[in-house]
């Protein structure tokens, strides 16, 4: 494998992409899913996550064009050059152009869009061509690739992980991913005594416990929590979330990752998201938050980051004055850092690692300390 001269790479792990236009060769949803599948190929082996924008400038702008199309690399009609992409960086950099003089297909009858998209995304992320004929980043298009069993070669994985490292969940040696269902070691265990959560939220009376790229869904009628991939419900949401909370009065759940947040209503991600967290009133020094919960009675939302917290007024839609304050001052007994917070039965439940602190806001004290996964009937 090799990286571009100067080793350009993205300085953030959450990237945005936008499909600017479509080829007449395929239905739009076929193009959408080919691109999503190609993104997942790289998501599986790195800490990178992607979300889709429908307007404005995304990190990775994806378009179809023929012949001269506004950069220095004209396309050449059918055959030979199929597509090209630019290394990480602003503007044109990171972008992908497909030659629409090719016949783009979902199978191998023409030029398979998924396969070429996965290769070009390798360039958008910083990989140059590989001399390994088995590698996805080998420059020649291999129409005989078994699409159903497609997988990155070790060379591809070594290449991309030399730029971004392995996915946060795995600390072992770089994985060569399989397209089949992830092996046991990648799927978080519900009743692992050491288990912790990335984020927790209510959703229309249910409880969602987010972990890695999955979530448990606990409802009143089904004592056994369901287990799902986040992407199964919200394909454009990232995984390895930081925080989540529901604002009942708006029937909306807000999801946080890094310096961005999304609004979801049911399983619809609202248009115009992600937005920057600083639009909520956080100082620029805050690069991410750890947890959040919205008090539906008081219509106040609490944001927790390291040992401090902020309070946001849902009526005035603004961060309140006099914050941040120390968590220890107002929630005595709750130990930072807070992974997630849940409000239920008049209590606040603070989750920190494998421990859960039940906090009585009236008595202003911790009344119970439980295992984090006690909500999952462990």
């Amino acid at each position, binding site marked *: 494998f*090799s990286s*571009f*001269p100067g080793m350009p790479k993205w300085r953030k792990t959450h990237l945005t992409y936008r499909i600017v236009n479509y080829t007449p060769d395929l239905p739009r949803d076929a193009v959408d899913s080919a691109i999503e599948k190609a993104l997942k190929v790289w998501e599986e082996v790195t800490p990178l996550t992607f979300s889709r924008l429908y307007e404005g400038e995304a990190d990775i702008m994806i378009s179809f064009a023929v012949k001269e199309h506004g950069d220095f*690399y004209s*396309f050449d009609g059918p*055959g*030979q*050059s*199929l*597509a*090209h*992409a630019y290394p990480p960086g602003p503007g044109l950099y990171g972008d992908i152009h497909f*030659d629409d003089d*090719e016949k783009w297909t979902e199978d191998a009858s023409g*030029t398979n869009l998924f396969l*070429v998209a996965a*290769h*070009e995304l390798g*360039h958008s992320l910083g990989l*140059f*061509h590989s*001399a390994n*004929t088995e590698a996805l980043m080998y*420059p*020649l*298009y291999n*129409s005989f690739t078994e699409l159903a069993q497609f997988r990155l070669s070790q060379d591809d994985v070594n290449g991309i992980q030399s730029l971004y490292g392995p996915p946060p969940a795995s600390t072992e040696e770089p994985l060569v991913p399989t397209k089949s269902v992830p092996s046991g070691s990648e799927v978080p265990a519900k009743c692992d005594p050491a288990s912790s959560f990335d984020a927790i939220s209510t959703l229309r009376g249910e409880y969602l416990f987010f972990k890695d790229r999955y979530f448990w869904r606990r409802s009143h009628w089904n004592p056994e929590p369901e287990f799902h991939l986040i992407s199964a419900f919200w394909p454009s949401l990232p995984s390895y979330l930081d925080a989540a909370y529901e604002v009942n009065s708006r029937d909306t759940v807000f999801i946080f990752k890094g310096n961005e947040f999304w609004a979801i209503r049911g399983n619809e991600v609202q248009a115009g998201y992600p937005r920057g967290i600083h639009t909520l009133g956080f100082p620029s020094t805050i690069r991410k938050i750890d947890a959040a919960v919205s008090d539906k009675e008081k219509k106040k939302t609490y944001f927790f980051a390291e040992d401090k917290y902020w309070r946001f007024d849902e009526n005035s839609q603004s961060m309140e004055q006099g914050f941040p304050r120390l968590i220890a001052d107002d929630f005595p007994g709750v130990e930072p850092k807070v992974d997630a917070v849940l409000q239920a039965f008049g209590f606040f439940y603070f989750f920190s690692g494998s421990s859960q602190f039940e906090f009585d806001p009236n008595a202003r004290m911790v009344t119970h300390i439980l295992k984090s996964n006690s909500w999952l009937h462990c």
Partner: protein
Amino acid sequence: YPLSGAAKEEDSNRDLAQQYLEKYYNLEKDVKQFRRKDSNLIVKKIQGMQKFLGLEVTGKLDTDTLEVMRKPRCGVPDVGH
């Protein structure tokens, strides 16, 4: 005089190779050097391409090399610049 078939084909192979090396292997666009078939630089560029793409390194525009150059591929160069 009209080029014989073989000579015509040789010309078109040379053009294909020149475009390919200019596009993907950072060969300077300089027509003359391609006319001097034994130009050392060209042989080196052809050898570099053959090595990168996993072909037998002959330095010549043999059949395998010409066939690979006609295959569909990514438009990003193989040699950085």
